[in-house]
């Protein structure tokens, strides 16, 4: 009996080693370069067996339509360039467990019918796309139905100047996928920087998305995602999060999203999400909220925006705590009277109340919605009278004796000093 059990253990161990080690142990390395056995990436990929590594050395490869249909690693050394010469999609991945790393992939023409991308993954899992540079393409990296994939360290750069929205694709496009990680990428000059549709339980981390024609990040029907420490800058319309639940947005920076219809963050039909420790700087509108409920917006900085928050009347049960509002033209504006939203312990630089008992909390409530902001909401051209003496006077009178501004939008306990989010933990704990 003892012998038998020992035999089983050894056998299982062997089997395990074989199973785990097999892709590495069995894989060959196929080298591609000018003087190697293979001169073209396509040829090498077609010859490769499952588990092989195709190693491409520096140089320019004028190829397109590379189809990977077995689990291999396609790895570039010394920055090889694959130039598609505008003749269709360049790399198409049709197998699970594929890795593409270290290439410069460039030149994919606009294709309205096929949505050609530089790298496309369709219907397979565990794909890794790492440290590639994608230049001048229609769609950059296109992922559809590929669970547990990783897109990391890529640079996707397009030419959006002078093009209309429909002639541009998205830099990183993810569709109907679970558990994808998009991190440390730099995307610019496309339609949407990062596009998520029906993507769940995913992570968007430390990306920089700027100068995109439409949104820096576009989120639709994608529940349970986390995005942290990203920078969204100078995008046509900022970041849009729509029709989703359970999102965490933390430590992101939204800045310089200027223009007629630009938002730092556009929230539409989103619920049960948290927005913490973000910075909104110099946007036309910091956060625009429509039909959004049960959001926690805490510890954010709103600095020098046109409108820090536009809270539409369709929003309910949102909580705004411990945010700093400094240098905004309008702190909060609304189109009606939203109900059951809580403003508490925020710092408003326009607050001119006093603190007699020295508990760092103002004794007089602050009303962040000014009469003038309501007027501008109703009659946009009256924005011409900004900083007119009449307007300032009107606002002051309305603050003393509110009659038009919504009763419910009030910070009963505004802070006297700006919250320093990193150092003021003690104050914050006391207030909790």
């Amino acid at each position: 009996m003892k012998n038998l059990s020992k035999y089983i253990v050894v056998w299982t161990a062997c089997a395990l080693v074989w199973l785990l080690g097999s892709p590495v142990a069995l894989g060959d390395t196929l080298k591609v370069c000018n003087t190697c056995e293979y001169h073209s990436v396509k040829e090498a990929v077609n010859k490769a067996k499952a588990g092989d590594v195709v190693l491409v050395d520096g140089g320019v490869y004028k190829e397109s339509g590379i189809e990977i249909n077995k689990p291999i690693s396609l790895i570039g050394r010394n920055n090889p360039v694959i130039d598609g010469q505008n003749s269709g999609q360049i790399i198409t991945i049709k197998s699970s467990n594929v890795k593409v790393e270290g290439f410069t992939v460039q030149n994919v023409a606009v294709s309205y019918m096929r949505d050609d991308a530089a790298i496309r993954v369709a219907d397979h899992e565990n794909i890794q796309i790492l440290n590639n540079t994608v230049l001048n393409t229609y769609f950059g990296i296109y992922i559809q139905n590929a669970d547990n994939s990783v897109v990391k360290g890529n640079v996707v750069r397009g030419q959006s100047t002078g093009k209309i929205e429909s002639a541009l694709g998205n830099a990183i496009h993810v569709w109907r996928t679970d558990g994808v990680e998009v991190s440390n990428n730099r995307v610019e000059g496309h339609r949407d920087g990062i596009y998520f549709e029906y993507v769940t339980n995913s992570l968007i981390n430390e990306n920089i998305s700027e100068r995109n024609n439409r949104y820096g990040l576009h989120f639709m029907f994608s529940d349970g995602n986390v995005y942290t420490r990203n920078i969204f800058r100078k995008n046509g319309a900022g970041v849009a999060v729509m029709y989703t639940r359970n999102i965490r947005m933390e430590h992101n920076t939204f800045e310089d999203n200027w223009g007629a219809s630009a938002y730092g963050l556009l929230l539409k039909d989103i619920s049960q999400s948290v927005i913490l420790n973000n910075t909104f700087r110099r946007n036309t509108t910091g956060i625009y909220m429509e039909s959004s409920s049960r959001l926690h917006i805490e510890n954010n900085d709103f600095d020098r925006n046109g409108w820090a928050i536009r809270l539409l009347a369709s929003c309910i049960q949102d909580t705004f705590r411990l945010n700093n509002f400094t240098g905004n033209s309008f702190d909060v504006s609304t189109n009606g009277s939203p109900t059951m939203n809580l403003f508490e312990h925020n710092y408003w630089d326009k607050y001119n109340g006093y603190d007699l008992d020295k508990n760092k909390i103002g004794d007089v409530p602050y009303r962040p919605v000014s009469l003038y902001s309501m007027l501008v909401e109703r009659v946009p051209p009256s924005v011409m009278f900004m900083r007119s003496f009449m307007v300032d006077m009107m606002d002051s009178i309305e603050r003393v004796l509110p009659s038009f501004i919504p009763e419910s939008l009030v910070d009963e306990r505004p802070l006297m000093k700006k919250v320093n989010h990193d150092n003021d933990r003690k104050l914050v704990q006391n207030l909790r």
Partner: protein
Amino acid sequence: MNKIIKYVLYDIVRNKIVVAYTLFLLLLSIGLFNLGGSPEKGLLSLLNLVLLTVPLISIVFGTTHFYNSYEFMELLVSQPIKRSKIFMSEYWGVSLSLSAAFLIGVGIPVLLFAPSATGLYLVLTGVFITFIFVALAFLASVITRDKAKGIGIALLLWFYFALIYDGIVLFILYSFADYPLEYATLALTALNPVDLGRVMVLLNLDISAMMGYTGALYKSIFGSMWGIGIALVVMVLWVLVPLMTSRRAFKRRDV
């Protein structure tokens, strides 16, 4: 004419009000630039102040000066000098001294702390407003001989341009909110030099980008050379119309 302007200037400098005005502006602008963090913030606060005090002081000083130099003017009228020459010399004397005070009091601090196109627009606006409100002051002065009444009219004019006008326009905008009002608002701002100056400076500041769709529309108008050119022409008209009207009245009047 130069000789009369010289006498007027000499008279104005001697009574020290302009010197006090210069010092007041200088102190204020240096204070504001040192108070606010960024030069842009300083410019904004300065703008509000310039648009309130400069018209007030220009119009009150212009009116009182006109009434105070009645005897001098009567003396000159008895000489073989054209009346329009006397009037224009008085006007140049007052407006030049006040704009010089403004240039020293606000122009130099702006040049030191915020040398930008926006700063230039602010100074330009201030100088224009000085000229416009001195012209309005002279208009108020030629309407009536009674000094108290004249100053009353002048103050009313200031009150109208600095405060009431904006209130009226906001009320109109509110009442006609259902109509497209973009260009109507533009026309309405041109009818008040104070608003015109404010909008010109404001739209060339960064915050203009923050004013949404309408702000962007106006920015595209006022940010272009064309828009600025038209605004300046309107400002010049604002100087010329009251000035010419009052000169005509002065020429025809039986002193």
